[in-house]
């Protein structure tokens, strides 16, 4: 079992890379496998819970996260400036162990966050990125993967449409997908039909992040599973999706 730490850390960078979307880089000697996440907080008692964010990237000086401002917690995170402190618990979750052979990494919206680390660690990975509007950080992916396919619902900076429409599992040995439920279901359908194993990263509200509180449990074919500890990465056929 990996060692987990809870530490205060200095913000190195918190840059708005697209409207409402921030790249946060935090100082320190952090580690993580692809698909793992940290619980972050930069406030005292309110809101009580920390916010789970996937590790976007690791470098010798720190760890970075890519997040969208959705509610109160992410809004508070977005107000951090370099030099400010936050507290980070992690790395958490099983992460994605990667597989042999040709792999497709499919991300929709903020679902692209856990894919960069995967692209870095899987030798033969193709990347499929879907954006609602103008794409961002595509260059980061191009640095580490040969083939990077980009879609955009508006058609700006990529093929117009949805990434789940563009993507085809043919020829891959495994896929890893991350994004909104609709997209995951669509990708799952294609992979099932093509007989390609698909891993997905799930999201659930979390309190402890460590597997202790059972707040993030989801029903799966094998019984209740904790997204924070048994996941967040599951084989697509495991969770009981409503639909």
């Amino acid at each position, binding site marked *: *079992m*990996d*060692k*987990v*730490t*809870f530490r205060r850390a200095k913000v190195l960078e918190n840059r708005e890379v697209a409207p409402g979307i921030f790249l946060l880089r935090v100082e320190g000697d952090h580690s993580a496998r692809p698909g793992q996440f940290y619980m972050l907080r930069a406030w005292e*008692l*309110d*809101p*009580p*819970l*920390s916010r789970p964010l996937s590790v976007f990237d690791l470098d010798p000086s720190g760890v970075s996260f890519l997040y969208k401002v959705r509610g109160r917690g992410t809004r508070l995170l977005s107000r951090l400036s370099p030099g400010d402190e936050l*507290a980070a*618990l992690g790395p958490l979750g099983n992460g994605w162990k990667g597989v042999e052979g040709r792999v497709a990494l499919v991300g929709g919206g903020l679902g692209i966050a856990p894919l960069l680390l995967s692209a870095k660690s899987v030798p033969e990975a193709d990347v499929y990125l879907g954006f609602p509007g103008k794409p961002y950080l595509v260059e980061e992916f191009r640095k580490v993967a040969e083939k990077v396919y980009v879609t955009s619902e508006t058609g700006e900076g990529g093929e117009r449409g949805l990434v789940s429409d563009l993507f085809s599992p043919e020829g891959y040995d495994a896929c890893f997908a991350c994004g909104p439920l609709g997209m995951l279901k669509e990708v799952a359908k294609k992979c099932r039909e093509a007989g390609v194993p698909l891993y997905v990263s799930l999201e*659930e*509200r*979390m*309190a*402890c992040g*460590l*597997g*202790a*509180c*059972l*707040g*993030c*449990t*989801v*029903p799966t074919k094998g*019984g*209740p599973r904790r997204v924070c*500890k048994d996941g967040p990465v599951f084989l697509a056929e495991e969770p009981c999706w409503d639909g």
Partner: protein
Amino acid sequence: MVDLSVEVGGLRLKNPVIAAAGTFGFGTEYARLYDVGLLGGICTKGLTLKPRPGNPPPRLWETPCGLLNSIGLENPGVEAFLQEELPRMRGLGTAVIANIWGETPEEYRELAERLSRSDVDAIELNLSCPNVPGGKIRGGVPEEVARIVGLCRRVCEKPLWVKLPPEGDVLEAAQAAERAGADAVTASNTFRALAIDIEKGRPAFAGRIGGLSGPAIKPIALRVVYELVQKLKLPVIGCGGITSWQDALEFIMAGAHAVQVGTGNFIDPLCIPKIVRGLADWLAGRGMEDLEGVRGCAH
């Protein structure tokens, strides 16, 4: 030298700060983060006779300085606990208190009997879970408390703690527990509370009502402890909204023999060892050797 150890309800603890049931799993999860042997004790997730899958998501909902939960007592059942979890828990170097929940008084008795023959250090009867649909037990009702505690007492050699809800006739329920042979009272569990998801126009949880915990409830939980201590002979274990040594000290000054920390673990996962250290430092700074001198001083 400061000595934080305390005898509470038939059990000697190395310090008075205990992880509250349901927030600390079976201890091993937090052991990845720090040495949980620093704790006074760990209350297990609430155990039932049979495994329970718990409630559908969402199970958590934030409120101002508070946390609503609707876990629904997901747990592997008492047998799996005894076989798989307890041996590992025993290796953690701290007291193990088995928190149990029955659908009927007889189920409580059966659980208490089974655990009494095991290696746990104490048993805590959860008479107060707000979010189990089948939950017919009302821990705030003295007659029901008396019945359950009496049944368990007869089959249980271990220290028997009774965890009450913060609502209802708490004092009378506690006195009923006292008369029926309990060794200590834990006050309290969560408050019955509600959140509505205004996007959906529906309660946030499938089971509608959830249990409110966290800093928000601290002043009410503290009042409950203060009032119980005035009337009870049994030691009281304070619980509700504790996140700092200052909070813990408030409960001790209100007369609590020990405290439990639940939601505090989510706010700061290192919360309990910090509280233990904070209490020791505070005592040392005043030249005091133990908590005896301050316990109940606010009465």
